[in-house]
């Protein structure tokens, strides 16, 4: 057993963190103030990350990606999690599901994503089908060689900047198919979504399909094989949520520790009061635990060991940990913690969504307990 990072992993962590701190932190305040990020700045981030060979780090090298293993990728996500989603969205990590492309689809979707020429979004959730994805109502019916899609998706992250969307729709009872849908396809519309308390500048969208005609060649994976392709390739997405939570929590913790050592009340550093120092102790313990759970689950994936429960544990624990740690970091800062001069109020708001997206905490608990009870006939 070895808990140390390899030299490569250590250098990846240092490089990504340096880049994030030096190049992306300075852009955060403006994103928060305006609630958006100008596209030119996003493209500039893309260009620079591409030059560093860090673009599409999760995609195998044979397709031109960085070819990182899951541990390496989790470490990278952890460091990216330190900064705003609106910014790190441009550090291209195309959905792994695009590895299921046919050779012809690869040329049109996967490879342009790897080269930073196209951005993908992924749509499962509907107004009436959230946790219960199988209950989705968007349907596609066959018309000759084509498919006609009708329905609505909502909460679709960064579809505003996407060139195409990977969309899951029902093609029969308990029969779901995954389609690649280009922006601009007649009958397909990408509209602004809701304004969220979390992750300003990182927009969610509403997608509408109104007799949208798609050739069969737009199907990703097999017809009716939507869940198979999702289960094969999206297995580890929740782990990236966990990793990002760890990175952001570590940043909040660092601020709290520095402040506790510097702020004086009653003639001494507030960190000298046990009421404050014990908070810090609990915070770092929770961050470290989430970090280890996340990396251990990533390691299991790299060893081809079953990791469903471990990924759910990491996602559950890290997202709930982030809520507590950002809350306590504000407490350590007192009133200043709530002011937008410091990034803490933002971390606290941003933390809220982590317990909801990519499977709510309740759904993670459901997955974990099901795995526990199954061998006992549960």
């Amino acid at each position: 057993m070895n808990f140390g990072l390899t030299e490569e992993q250590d250098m990846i962590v240092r490089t990504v963190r340096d880049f994030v701190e030096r190049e992306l932190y300075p852009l955060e305040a403006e994103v928060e103030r305006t609630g958006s990020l100008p596209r030119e700045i996003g493209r500039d981030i893309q260009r620079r990350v591409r030059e560093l060979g860090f673009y599409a780090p999760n995609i195998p090298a044979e397709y031109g990606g960085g070819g990182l293993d899951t541990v390496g990728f989790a470490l990278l996500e952890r460091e990216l999690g330190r900064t705003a989603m609106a910014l790190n969205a441009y550090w291209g990590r195309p959905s792994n599901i695009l590895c299921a492309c046919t050779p012809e689809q690869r040329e049109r979707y996967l490879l342009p994503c790897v080269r930073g020429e196209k951005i993908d979004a992924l749509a499962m959730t509907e107004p009436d089908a959230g946790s219960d994805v199988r209950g989705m109502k968007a349907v596609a019916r066959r018309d000759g060689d084509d498919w006609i899609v009708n329905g609505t998706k909502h909460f679709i992250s960064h579809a505003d900047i996407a060139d195409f969307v990977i969309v899951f729709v029902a093609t029969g009872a308990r029969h779901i198919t995954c389609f690649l849908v280009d922006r601009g396809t007649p009958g397909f519309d990408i509209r602004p979504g809701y304004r969220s308390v979390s992750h300003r500048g990182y927009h969610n969208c509403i997608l509408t399909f109104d007799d949208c005609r798609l050739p069969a060649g737009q199907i990703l994976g097999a017809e009716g094989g939507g869940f198979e392709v999702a289960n094969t390739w999206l297995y580890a997405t929740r782990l990236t949520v966990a990793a990002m939570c760890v990175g952001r929590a570590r940043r909040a913790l660092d601020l709290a520790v520095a402040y506790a050592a510097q702020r004086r009340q009653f003639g001494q550093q507030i960190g000298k009061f046990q009421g404050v120092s014990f908070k810090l102790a609990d915070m770092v313990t929770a961050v470290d635990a989430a970090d280890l759970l996340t990396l251990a689950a990533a390691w299991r994936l790299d060893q081809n060991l079953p990791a469903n429960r471990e990924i759910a544990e990491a996602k559950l624990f890290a997202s709930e940990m982030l809520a507590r740690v950002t809350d306590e970091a504000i407490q350590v800062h007192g009133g200043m913690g709530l002011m937008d001069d410091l990034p803490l109020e933002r971390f606290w708001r941003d933390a809220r969504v982590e317990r909801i997206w990519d499977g709510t905490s309740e759904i993670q608990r459901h997955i974990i307990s099901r795995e526990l009870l199954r061998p006992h006939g549960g």
Partner: protein
Amino acid sequence: MKVLVPVKRVVDYNVKVRVRSDGTGVETAGVKMSMNPFDEIAVEEAIRLKEKGVVSEIIAVSLGVAACAETIRTALAMGADRGILVETDAELQPLAVAKLLRALAEREQPRLMILGKQAIDDDMNATGQMLAALLGWSQGTFASKITIDGDTATVTREVDGGLETVALTMPAIITTDLRLNEPRYASLPNIMKARKKPIETVRPADLGVDPAPRLKTLRVVEPPKRQAGAKVASVAELVAKLRTEAKVI
């Protein structure tokens, strides 16, 4: 042309250093360590010279404890070709470093050595100059621009009065100033390649150098605490305070 670039492992420039409680130095345990920023600039310059086709091989050298290999690895990930670690637990002072580097220069025969003008830990600003003297090579310190043409290196130096340009006959020692370039980040492919690049480890004795310190540090103390500032409402109040309280005018 071969170029040798020494890289020093120092406390990261973002870390707020603290004096050890026994006053023997600054605390380095559990502190983030990085490549001296001036040395990063030196590595970057060497890589740019290589990209221009002027340099054929870049050797990164670090001197000190075994962990200095990490600093070499960073240089390799930026684009250096191979590394040499002069491993020792001894405290290294500029003269010892200069002697060790001279020994390496004699062995490796580079035409150029690019060093940081100083390390941000001890701020000595001496190693490059001592090395040039020991080797009898030309030196261009505080470089803000370097051009190499055949056997001549033209170096623009940042001096108090402005910019001074000197022409050096190679072999030469150049030390970098802050404005020479902006160092690149290590790229992912280079990080992956760095592991395969060789790092040779030698000891001071192998180079026939005794690195024992010549200077003794008596005591290290924190700088005096700065007084908190105060805001004034008007120029008149400022002038009054400068006169009566600060007594500077």
